[in-house]
């Protein structure tokens, strides 16, 4: 009886579908700032400090560089737009631009007064959000003519670090552990109807929730759950928090945080080297999420049962970005030299991109602990 059970287990293990991971050639020449799958799941883009946005196509034999779009300044983020021929990018030249991949035409749709470091696109609302180190958020409507896209600008209470959109919410993680959650629908409505004036150029709009981050250190990344119930955030201090939007006490009681991406110092001093958790990405189907750290590890977590599902072999340098394809079949991993105190821009390692073909067991939630 138990022997047959054991055999069954062995059988299950042995019949795991083969997984594959391949490395992408023609990678950017400098640190990758973001990596994003298109909704078809067969194309992805990478934006880089080398002033280019790269578009790759996944083919039978791997992934090939299809296009690279030059910018005049390092690109800090890029997202796919309304279809797979449109990309939006933001960078150190403060501009948010729309790029038509067919014509390679670039249109500046708004400008901040500091670098535009993060973008988010909502397909449902046809809204593009850009956030900038000038502590503002620009909201753009993408289905109107390019000149009129920029709807309004919202002044944030702190400098933003990361933004993420879910179906109905916008989460903005900021300095001083501030974190705001906006209701997207009313935000869009307010932005559409607002009439910015010279004396008051900013949209007046209160977030749905003002939160304090569960993490004590600078937030590195925030990502909304695909089921729109909550979000995960990560900090420079090797930690990830999972929280729920629902303000009720019982939902708030569910939140938690955990340590990860820490390695013992190699000198045997017993000190833990704690790496920033640079990237978070939710699996669109299973609702599990991956974290990527400065230690070069990528781990897949089940946020509900609070378990780690997988940890992949260490990548050669810091993880700069992660994204699942919308069908959940691929995970793309951007590897870049990491950030370290006092060594800005001198991090070790080279730029690499890996695409991992996932099998079910890698991302599927595990049964709850007995």
């Amino acid at each position: 009886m138990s022997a047959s059970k054991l055999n069954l287990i062995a059988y299950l293990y042995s019949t795991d579908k083969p997984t594959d991971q391949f490395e992408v050639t023609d990678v950017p020449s400098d640190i990758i700032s973001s990596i994003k799958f298109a909704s078809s799941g067969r194309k992805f883009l990478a934006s880089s400090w080398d002033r280019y946005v790269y578009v790759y196509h996944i083919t039978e034999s791997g992934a090939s560089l299809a296009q690279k779009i030059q910018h005049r300044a390092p690109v800090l983020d890029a997202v796919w737009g309304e279809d797979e021929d449109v990309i939006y990018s933001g960078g150190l030249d403060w501009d948010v631009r729309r790029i038509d991949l067919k014509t390679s035409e670039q249109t500046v749709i708004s400008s901040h007064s500091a670098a535009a470091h993060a973008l988010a696109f909502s397909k449902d609302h046809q809204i593009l959000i850009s956030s900038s180190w000038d502590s503002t958020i620009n909201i753009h409507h993408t289905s109107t003519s390019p000149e009129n896209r920029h709807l309004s600008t919202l002044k944030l209470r702190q400098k933003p670090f990361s933004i993420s959109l879910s179906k109905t919410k916008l989460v903005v993680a900021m300095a001083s552990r501030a974190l705001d959650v906006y209701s997207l629908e009313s935000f869009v409505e307010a932005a559409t109807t607002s009439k910015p004036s010279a004396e008051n150029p900013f949209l007046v709009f209160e977030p749905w929730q003002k939160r304090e981050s569960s993490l004590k250190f600078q937030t590195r990344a925030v990502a909304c759950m695909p089921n729109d119930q909550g979000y995960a955030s990560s900090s420079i201090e090797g930690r990830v928090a999972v929280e729920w939007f629902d303000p009720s006490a019982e939902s708030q009681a569910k939140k938690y945080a955990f340590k990860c991406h820490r390695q013992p110092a190699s000198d045997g001093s017993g000190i833990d080297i704690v790496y920033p958790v640079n990237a978070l990405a939710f699996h669109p189907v299973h609702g599990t999420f991956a974290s990527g750290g400065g230690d070069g590890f990528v781990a897949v977590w089940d946020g509900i049962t609070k378990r780690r599902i997988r940890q992949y072999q260490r990548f050669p340098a810091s993880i700069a970005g992660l994204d699942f394809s919308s069908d959940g079949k691929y995970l793309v991993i951007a590897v870049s030299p990491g950030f370290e105190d006092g060594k800005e821009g001198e991090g070790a390692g080279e730029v690499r991109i890996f695409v991992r073909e996932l099998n079910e067991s890698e991302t599927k939630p595990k049964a709850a602990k007995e």
Partner: protein
Amino acid sequence: MGKKKRSQPDLEEILQRPWCYYCERDFDDLKILINHQKAKHFKCDRCGRRLNTAGGLSVHMTQVHKESLTTIENALPNRAGLEVEIFGMEGIPEDVVIAHRQRVATQFVQAGNQPMNHNVNPATAGINSAKKPRLEAGSDLKKRLAEHKAKKAAVEEAAATDTASPVVDTPVGQPQSYPPPVFTPPQLLPGFAGPPGPTGLMNMGGPAFNGYAPPYGQAPTPFQAPSFTSPPVPFGQQPFEAPPFQVPQNAYAPPSQYQTGLPNIPSRPFGANLPDALHQVSSAPPPSMLQTPRPNSLPSAPGLPQRPSFGAPSVNAFQLQQMHQGHIPNSSLPYADQPKPTNGIPALASNVIPATVSQPPQPSVQLQTSTEIPKEEAKPAESSIEKRSKKDKDKDIKLVYSDNDISPEEKLSKLARYAFHPVRQEAATAGA
């Protein structure tokens, strides 16, 4: 499963539990451990194939996938290396074994248990410590228990003087025998598939074994229970190749149950090896293994599947992890001290940072100000939760990036090579 019935758990049996070098999880049974290692640590990332050892996986990765294996998956950070060749309990470096035992023993004592008194001769301890770690057969253990009890009185004062860590020395000093690797009963098949031998023997497999209940109740699980597949031929005729294992110090006296229970087995020809043989039988190698016996390896036995009991004796997996956390400077482990078993997987602790939507938590605020001193910052955070054995082991941390207010990207953007000049901006805008 083993110890619950007893009022006082035995350190010995906790120490005897097979445990995984890579993740320090312990198991009821060696076979479970081996299966665990194959599934968790030696499984190919790419094709799901389960290899027997890290070396095997490495070769597989190189040959099949043209990749080089650098770390063992799911391993504790300082155990992820490929330098040591592990199979089951074999190959674990001496210092790690000692550390493990120390931790188990410390935990045991902390849990309020009395260690068994053992006579530990420092000299022999030293000698034995040069040996590889060995898993002890249940029969050996049983014998030793009897032995220890007999000597208990005599050793008391020795134990009393041994104030340093009597518990710790004990396991090291004890010879531990390992199942002989190449004992391969030809007709022996997993389970009861053997030809109908003496029926008395066959019956041994199940109910008859109950006669052993008391001693085995104390024993670690490996030798426990159902699939005691008895050999169809007497032991005396088995091609038995004695491995280089340590014969217990004292003349071996098999427990009487053996003799009564296994009348067909000539007890003397094997002498001290008998119990090992018995154990071996219980973990008969599968046919594949029979063809290629691995010297120095444990046979992976299909015949004796045991349910891994996670609520292990007095030291559950989680507590082990806890203890180990101190020793293992690491962790991808959760940071709350939740008393729940982790299964060797860093379970996400349900953490308690009290930040709420509306209410700023006190501790967090204090912490935030101490960014500059990472050493101090971890402590209040954790001490505010529970603290037990973790306290002194809570290590210092060093942030790779510690600026709490400026993002790495913003710092990077200030470098000259990324500078964006407004002059250029205008020109470019005009061009665009």
